[in-house]
């Protein structure tokens, strides 16, 4: 059975329906890309999977590890092994990166019965340094406030660091409309490629096919007007780059 199953997912915000029946299956070890024009619902899909309170799910189901996910709070989804790399991560002034990561790691280690199993400080420190080195993150970042005053590249690195620390089974990367520069592309792709494998699958959401040159997807899905209208192998990226979304009835410049 696939690790993540999305069936006939409908979702709306402020009464406007954005997702109109999305079906998708994804397992660890796989990389799926979702591409689509602006406003097709890509970012909504990412937020609904993680449980953003502003969206209302009106139909369908999401099953992850055999559990009905839609009933769960965002933190419960995270502890099950879902991860969302935000396009625009919030800043939390006054809370240091180190402090936050330790709490998040401990939340992840907490048992289903709520029993605490906090990580020992030396172990945490070792894990943090290893991941920071791998992601080329300066050590001084741990004492800065979470995302507060971070540059675009620093925010990307911070999202990748969190992913590496929390070791999700399925990571969703929301890169919907960001004009990622080469630097940022490398940060994101290095972060994902390091972890994709038997332990993790990824759902990469992007507008441009450029990112897919750095992260090789196994499957590409085209999302238009809240539905997946086409699914194919990695070759679809080139086709989209040549022809844009016009074949799907969307007027927009090439991707």
């Amino acid at each position, binding site marked *: 059975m696939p690790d993540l199953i999305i069936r006939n997912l409908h979702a709306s915000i402020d009464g406007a329906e954005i997702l109109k029946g999305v079906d998708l299956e994804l397992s660890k070890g796989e990389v799926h890309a979702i591409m689509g024009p602006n406003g097709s619902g890509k970012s909504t899909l990412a937020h609904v999977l993680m449980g953003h309170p502003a969206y209302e799910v009106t139909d369908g189901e999401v099953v992850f590890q055999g559990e009905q996910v839609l009933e769960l*709070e965002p*933190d419960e989804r*995270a502890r099950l092994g879902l991860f969302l790399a935000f396009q625009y991560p*919030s800043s939390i002034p006054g809370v240091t990166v180190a402090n936050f990561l330790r709490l998040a790691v401990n*939340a992840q280690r907490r048992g289903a019965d709520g029993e605490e199993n906090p990580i020992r400080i030396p172990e945490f420190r070792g894990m943090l340094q290893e991941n920071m080195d791998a992601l080329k993150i300066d050590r001084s970042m741990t004492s800065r406030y979470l995302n507060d005053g971070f540059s675009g590249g620093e925010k990307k690195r911070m999202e990748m660091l969190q992913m590496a620390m929390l070791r999700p089974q399925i990571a969703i990367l929301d890169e919907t409309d960001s004009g990622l520069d080469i630097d940022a592309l490398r940060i994101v792709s290095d972060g994902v490629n390091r972890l994709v494998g038997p332990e993790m699958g990824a759902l990469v959401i992007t507008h441009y096919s450029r990112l897919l040159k750095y992260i090789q997807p196994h499957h590409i899905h085209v999302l238009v007007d809240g539905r997946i209208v086409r699914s194919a192998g990695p070759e679809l990226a080139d086709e989209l780059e040549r022809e844009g979304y016009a074949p799907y009835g969307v007027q927009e410049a090439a991707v």
Partner: protein
Amino acid sequence: MAELTREEQEAVAIGDYKYGFHDEVTSVFDMRRGLDEAVVREISAHKNEPEWMTEFRVKSYQHFLKRPLPQWGADLGTIDFDNIYYYLKPVEQQAKTWDDLPPGMRETWDKLGIPEAEKKYLAGVGAQYESEVVYHNLQEDLAKQGVVFLDMDSGLREHEDLVRQYFGTIIPYNDNKFAALNSAVWSGGSFIYVPPGVKVELPLQAYFRINAENMGQFERTLIIVDKDAYVHYVEGCTAPIYSTDSLHSAVVEIHVAEGGRCRYTTIQNWSTNVYNLVTKRAVAERNATMEWVDGNLGSQITMKYPAVILNGEGARGEVLSIAFAGKGQHQDAGGKITHAAPNTSSVITSKSISKDGGRSSYRGLLQVNEGAVGSKSKVVCDALIIDEDSRTDTYPYINIDENDVEIGHEATVSKIGEEQLFYLMSRGLSEEEASAMIVSGFVEPITKELPLEYAVELNRLIQLQMEGSVG
């Protein structure tokens, strides 16, 4: 069995408040409930005080009678002055070691972690229980350098001239109704003198504990920091939870001489049946620095506005205020700065959190006297409201009598952002943990000013307050 039952009852009544227990210590001397001139004279006689202090007390009592309750701030009409014990003496003799205390009382201090803290990171400790300081100690090398750290009663006995020079001069007996009350019935508190040039590197701590029901605690503190000296004084306070009210009304006077620096940190965690009505004021002379770090988490009603009079050129004053008002609490806190000399500067930073119908008010006064040219002041008040049942007020009075000054005030009110909450929860934090983390971040500009142990304690208290707030 009976004891078990009592503990069980307490467990229910106390809830999240960890210090709501009380012990069965019988006091050695009780004044009857209520207050009249005879009680005032009796307290003074019992303490064998000099004549001038007795007269000071009586004069203060008469002013207390005349003075109406303040018509602003929190509602104090419910205080039953006749039902309060104004003086309870818990032990015959002040102890020099913790082991000399009666076992029940010793246990209380252990539960509060004071002997432990003394060993680890304090230069001296005073522990007040009801009306008297029951334990007092100062590191020997500090005593050798001439540092005086005593309870106020001993201070009066051993350093009468110094006390007489300052006592009641910074906060006169007729300053306000509760300062008058304290001046009439004061007992305990700290007397500190730091000689010129001496820097006390580790904090001195005083801990105030109310144990009896309907207790009135009126400690009196006088701190004198001589030229170029430094001291950091920390106070903590807790009380048991009772269904009827207790009153805590302290007066704290501080004099910082030229070039000296004093930092006074309060972590107030009274139980929610305590009225906490405190007057605190410091005078800073030329190039001296006074800093108040004032954390108000407990009590039913707090009215407290630590003040600094910048009396000499180049003096600096700072007030960092945190208030957390939960269910049934009204924290009316803030700060007052008077610029009375040229080129003085001040900063007031206030962070308040209101939750579960609690109300926190910032009330401040910034006064620039004529002639205080080149004064600079900045007041920043940020309020966080956790839910829609709670309330926040901001009253920053600004009186300027001089035109060559730079004064700024800013205030914001915010709630916990939905996006911030979602972001943290998507990393596996529960809503409670995520909210507590955002709140800790909100007050971080102030907690970072505290020694680590106190910052940890403050954050822990905030977490406790945040528990059960969502869901």
